């Protein structure tokens, strides 16, 4: 039996990708800011 009979909506996709994407992007930005010291 399936758990997912109603299908995926755009909102589902935005929430799922935002859930993992936002922390990752913030972390990458922080690292980039630190990495810029290499060029100063």
């Amino acid at each position: 039996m399936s758990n997912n009979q109603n299908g995926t909506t755009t909102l589902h996709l935005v929430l799922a990708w935002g859930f993992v994407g936002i922390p990752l992007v913030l972390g990458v930005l922080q690292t980039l800011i630190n990495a810029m010291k290499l060029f100063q």
Partner: protein
Amino acid sequence: METASGGSGGWFDRSRTVAGPGFSRWMVPPAALCVHLCIGQAYAFSVFNLPMTKLIGIHQSAPGDWKLTQLGWIFSLAIFFLGVSSAVFGRWVEEGGPRKAMFTAACCWAGGFLISAFGVSIHNLWLIYLGYGVIGGIALGIGYISPVSTLIKWFPDRPGMATGMAIMGFGGGAFIAAPLSVWLMRKFTTASHIGVMETFVVLGIVYFIFMIVGSIIVRVPPAGWMPEGYVPPRQNKLISKNDVYVYDALKTPQFWLIWWVLCLNVTAGIGVLGQASAMSQEMFPGVITPIAAAGFVGLMSLFNMGGRFCWATVSDYIGRKNTYFVFMVLGFVLYCTVPHAGAIGSVALFVVCFLIIISMYGGGFSTVPAYLKDMFGTRYVGAIHGLLLTAWSAAGIFGPVIVNYLRQYNLAHGVPKADAYNNTMYIMAGLLVIGFICNLLVKAVHQKYHMKPEADEPALDIAGEAAARA
């Protein structure tokens, strides 16, 4: 209660994760990332090392405080148990399905943090070895392989890109964990207490929730599912349409050749990854400062993460074997160029060489699941991938040993610091030549290893049955 094969119901059962009509496969990569971003914290564990050497003395190490050498074993144990658990539990992960595996990984990962927190609170290092090193290491192994075969089944048209996305998360987990851990420790630290224990508790809870979300949204495709409009590639000797049983894969030369390809590629990368800061400062004394070196290491981490996605995606277009040829040939050229960059004092050339090298180090990890799928089929690819990760554990020993001991040897024999890494670079280039030969020898798996239809085990047919019932 469901069985390991997942045939008798229950939320964790493989049959309960079969996608219904209208489910988008693009929900699966975030589910995989929920796990990989969390377990990728392992790369940032070093932020706890210094604070944990001052738990008693607070401002500086006091008698009774742990030493860095003792704390270094925590990460080593975790990586060791990553290799062991992915090899031992690979088949169980494959047959039990991704939800059960992700949930187990979540429990072990969070449990490892909580046990470690207790170890910090009573100042017992053995509890941290057990918690983070052993139980956390098991979570790393199970969590790392848990979404691999599911992603490959959802993305038969782009298996490299799909697994590259998940494995990119493992590289990216440290970007979140490092600043978060530092911020939490600052919040919980007082004049008479260092907030490591509280940070472990919070991280354990947060990671548990994150990983559980992944296990809730993950789905496996119904049996025989294909993406709309997907046309399987024409006959290609290096892309098998047959499956190989996990333990039969071990009997094939292809498994061991790919094992060596991965091991040599990782050895070459991991050796310089750990020494990048010191190496850059010693090769360019006075030019690359400690702060700039830290920035360089951060940049390398970004390329390590980006390479995981980009190279695995490229492999979908040029093929897995060709991608590894690129790693070996380009890596050889770049390793041979590094001493030249040092000799002419070109920081830019040095940085570019290492950024590309480290992107290929990450690419080696993320391309290998699709390589295994091409060789051994999709059925047991997660379990076979688990066995292959022992190459990572071996490389984790070879790489740093080669770099550190050669540097020491050169310094002891009067070689200037700036030139001490030159021999190492040539040895790394030599390793890649061996890797090139191993990759060249990879041919299609002999049909005697292919699974026969009557040998198919019922455990993995649950998905098909469930789809028929739905």
